[in-house]
């Protein structure tokens, strides 16, 4: 910061010459020195944190305390903090069951997208078949198709084949909508693998499957990590798809909490800890894999 300010100060004489009529913007900008920037960013950061802190502290207060005063009261009365809400929540069969469902939906939906997407991505990158690039462009075109388009048709389709209301149905839908991005990302990444590497493996006697499993997949690590994290979070955080395709037995935590929101006000002791529990895994992923997370989200945000 100081070095930066020093650098700014240097061309001051030149600046002075040009400063005949500083506009309002200029004056604000020159007023925004190091100190001001720091204060502004500090306030913005605080502003960004307050909503989440509010949820966390609300989840740690009894419903009676929540009815009587705002969550910020705990700063003056820390004795109000309690984990009772969490205990009650984890004794609630519906909630624990829906948490389990979230895992049962998210893990297969992520693994399947990575595997099927890698196979297709490799085929589009390194196999020869008629119309290869056209097929690939077709898949890329599907990238931005809104999920909403498929809700009614797939609900009817799943109804006919008995997948409606099942975990498998929700997983399948997520795989379908995860694939365009997966194929797009992985094909581009695989296409940059040096040809010599593949040829060398081929000369060692590797078949297509072996080549894929032993050379392509390991080399695709970074892209696969980004894709996996993006897809994992996408499915874990989804509410709409599960709202349509799951029933009370197969619903994930988002849908279970959503039904509680309808009576917001009387059940903050369920909602706040529930929302926080549902956030724990994504936040852990976020802090553990920041780099892959960022690149995954950046690349996949078109969805």
């Amino acid at each position, binding site marked *: *910061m100081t070095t930066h300010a020093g650098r700014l100060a240097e061309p001051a004489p*030149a600046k002075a010459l*040009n400063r005949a009529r500083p506009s309002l913007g200029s004056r604000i*900008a*020159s007023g925004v020195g190091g100190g001001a*920037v720091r204060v502004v*960013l500090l306030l*913005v*950061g605080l502003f*960004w944190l307050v909503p*989440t802190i*509010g*949820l966390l502290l609300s989840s740690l207060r009894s419903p009676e305390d*929540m009815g009587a005063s*705002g969550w910020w009261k705990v700063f003056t009365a820390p004795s109000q903090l309690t984990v009772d809400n969490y205990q009650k929540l984890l004794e609630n069969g519906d909630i624990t069951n829906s948490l389990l469902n979230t895992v049962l939906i998210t893990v297969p939906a992520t693994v399947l997208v990575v595997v*099927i997407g890698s*196979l297709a991505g490799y*085929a589009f*990158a*390194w196999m*020869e078949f008629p119309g290869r690039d056209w097929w*690939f*462009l077709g898949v890329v*075109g599907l*990238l931005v198709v*809104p999920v*909403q*388009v498929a*809700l*009614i*048709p797939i609900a009817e*389709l799943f109804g006919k084949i008995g997948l409606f209301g099942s975990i498998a149905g929700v997983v399948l*839908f997520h*795989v*379908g909508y995860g*694939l365009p991005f997966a194929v797009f*990302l992985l094909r*581009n990444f695989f296409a*940059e693998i040096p*040809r010599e590497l593949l040829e060398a493996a*081929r000369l060692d006697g590797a078949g*297509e499957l072996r080549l894929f499993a032993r050379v392509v997949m390991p080399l695709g690590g970074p892209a696969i990590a980004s894709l996996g994290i993006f897809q994992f979070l996408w499915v874990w*955080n*989804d*509410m709409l798809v599960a709202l*349509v395709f799951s029933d009370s037995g197969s619903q994930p935590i988002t849908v279970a909490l*959503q039904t509680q*929101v309808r009576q917001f006000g009387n059940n903050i002791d369920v909602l*706040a800890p529930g*929302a926080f529990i549902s*956030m724990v895994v994504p*936040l852990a*992923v*976020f802090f553990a894999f920041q780099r892959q997370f960022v*690149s995954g*989200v*950046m*690349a996949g*945000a*078109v969805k």
Partner: protein
Amino acid sequence: MTSATAGGTAPVPPARTRKSVTGTRKAVVALFLLPALVLLGALVVYPIGYSVVRSFYDQQGDGFAGFDNYKALFTDDGIRTALKNNIIWVVFAPSVATALGLVFAVLTERVRWGTAFKLVVFMPMAISMLAAGIIFRLVYDQDPDKGVANAVWVGVHDTFAPSSAFPKAHPGRRSPLVADKGGFVTRDPVHTGQSVALPLVGVAPDVMPDSAGKAVQAATDPGRVTGTAWQDFTRGKGVGTLGRVDPSELGYSGMRIEAVKDGEVVDSAKAGADGTFSLSAKADGARLRLPASNFAEPYNGVDWLGPSLVTPAIIGSYVWMWAGFAMVLIAAGLAGVPRELLEAARVDGANEWQVFRRVTVPLLAPVLAVVAVTLMINVLKVFDLVFIIAPGSSQDDANVLALELYRKGFSEGRPGVASAIAVFLLLLVIPVMAFNVRRLRREVRR
């Protein structure tokens, strides 16, 4: 969208050199491709065709309906509100998020803890819209004792306009006061040398101002109008002596008293702790008024989730989630801006604002466009936040297309209209689809 550019740092090898190294058999190609193509065909392509066809049939699905379902897009009240709100969303949410992202990206370059700041602002991207919805349901709670937005708002408001202390006060029996424009006024004119009694009742003991002391009958002053405003109520004994100050009755500390002559305020005073006040000789012959401001209900904050503010409020929560996305993308773009260019501009005498406005922003224009377009597509499909944050009473006012599609399709039993909305959404994203394909075709066919 961005990975194409990120992946393009090393040029994609021309198609000819990416010939198969094994001379693949057809069966193997099928093995690799079929799972993806079958799933895409059944789950993504088929629904598009189905929706298009379905949108031309009636709600039962057996009669051809022509364009009736599309007409509903512009005649159905629910859809029209949704359309209007979607336009508001698309105009404001991406632009605000992008602008904030740009400012944050530029400013974080100047502090050492920029990374920590980015982490904080980017964090909401990790959580579900449902969780964000619950978070903001809490933030926007109407009760200033629950919702932090109203707590702050009321706090600021009361600093500048303290709420009145006597919300429920009113004249008792045989009072000299009559109601007047939300306040009260004496029936008869008052005169100098008089000590006027202004008895009221009805303020609960626990809301009386802390400063209120024992009321006393004001001493008379030949050159002034004096008097007492007090709570004419003795606990346990009812009114005590009606219209007279009894020993344990409390003064209306801080009550504002105006002397009104012919509709004009000629003098005013504030009651002291013992309820007494004193007005100058100008008040002679005037009537005394206790204006409405004394009796206003306490300020309760803004109804964030009421019909008029609910959409801006939800957009606020969206910006909270997505400004971090804009910031990180723009910061990545900013890292690619050659420092020498900025330095050169500074050496040439440009100040920080000019550097920002004339150098940084134009250089970042492509990134800003990508961010804004990405957010626009995202905003078109916004569902969870509206579904969760808007309370039942104002959900109609907060309606958006994706929500209306869900309602029409799954709770109102009108799949024909819902399909028409779906096709409409699809049409809106087709330009982006075409753009993606065109750009990639150049890369693929090199």
